[in-house]
């Protein structure tokens, strides 16, 4: 039974009471929320994810309104992990962004049994691309474009692997799009499913693209990266793929490694092993079709 198979009223009631338990890659999360503004978007964006029963849960999360007599207080919401508030309260109009950021935080703040890179990862055939980058570099836009053209989504935000194993574990959660890339992707991939639009978040305008069914279906199939691509949207730039030395790739990749110090020698060796097996590039682009063609030609 997938999230999307439930009758919306049943989904809402269950989400508000005992919660809905889903698995995203290696993580089982129980989600509870009474907020009506969150129910439909979660069911839409996670529709392909299986509902889990009788399983140990990694993260118990809840998004709820602040309690209190003050109307101002009640208009704000919190994200809790294991009953601990993870962030300052948000306005409830930002319930979905808070939920998604909270789900990310559950992993990068707690799942240190894995090594993690802030970056996207996609796979097609024998090629698996890891695309590290800061917010605004264009990695999520590029990731969404590739996914809409047949690449499998492993992850949009966090590439994770177990130390000593050089395969990326898929999470396949919704892809976060910001600002101009929202309309760009809706034009580029009109058949994809997008969540609601939020015009005024701390990161600018925000919307999410649902992961394709096939990506979610294959979330138990890890993949070894073959390419490390550092993407950079550059207005007016033709697609430019420029080789990066493995030494430089190591330096840059370690800057995006969220918990590199935690793993010591094993983490060091794991990162080096991964880079050894990859071709590494800088990639500048401005037109998505050009970018897709450039990646189609990757050997």
């Amino acid at each position: 039974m997938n999230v999307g198979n439930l009758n919306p009223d049943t989904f809402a009631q269950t989400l508000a009471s005992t919660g809905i338990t889903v698995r995203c890659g290696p993580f089982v999360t129980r989600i509870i929320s009474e907020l009506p503004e969150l129910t439909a978007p979660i069911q839409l964006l996670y529709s392909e994810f299986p509902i889990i029963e009788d399983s140990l849960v990694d993260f118990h999360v809840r998004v709820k309104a602040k309690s209190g007599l003050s109307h101002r207080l009640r208009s704000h919401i919190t994200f809790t992990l294991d009953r601990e508030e993870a962030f300052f309260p948000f306005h409830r109009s930002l319930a979905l962004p808070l939920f998604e950021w909270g789900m990310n935080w559950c992993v990068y703040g707690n799942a240190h049994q894995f090594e993690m890179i802030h970056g996207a990862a996609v796979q097609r055939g024998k090629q698996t691309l890891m695309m590290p980058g800061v917010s605004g570099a264009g990695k999520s836009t590029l990731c969404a474009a590739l996914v809409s053209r047949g690449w499998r989504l492993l992850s949009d935000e966090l590439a994770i692997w177990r130390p000593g194993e050089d395969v990326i574990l898929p999470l396949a959660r919704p892809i976060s799009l910001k600002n101009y890339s929202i309309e760009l992707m809706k034009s580029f991939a009109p058949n994809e499913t997008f969540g609601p639009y939020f015009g005024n978040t701390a990161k600018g305008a925000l919307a999410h693209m649902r992961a394709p069914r096939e990506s979610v279906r294959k979330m138990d199939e890890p993949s070894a990266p073959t390419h490390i691509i550092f993407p950079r949207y550059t207005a007016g730039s033709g697609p430019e793929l420029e080789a990066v030395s493995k030494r430089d790739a190591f330096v840059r990749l370690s800057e995006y490694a969220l918990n590199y110090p935690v793993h010591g020698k094993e983490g060091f060796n794991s990162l080096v092993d991964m880079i050894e097996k990859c071709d590494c590039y800088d990639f500048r682009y401005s037109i998505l079709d050009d970018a897709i063609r450039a990646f189609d030609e990757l050997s």
Partner: protein
Amino acid sequence: MRDGVNLIWRRLGDDYVVFNESSGQTYVPHPLSEWVLREIEVSEKTLGSLADQLVQDAELDPEVAEYRVREVLDEFNTMGLIEPGHKFD
């Protein structure tokens, strides 16, 4: 080299990256640093002997060689790789 320092060397292409297991620090040495690090990892060396070797191997001016090696050793001192207050001469 400071007691307890245990370095793990890994080659990446034409370069090396180094992990200091005792401190958890990672280094990406440039060629001269790499050479000095390897030399002092094997046995204790003075600044003078390192500079002399550099003059011989790289045909550098002695003053330049000493300056460059001192720079590298100062860096290693800051990193905690060599004994603090070690007299190089």
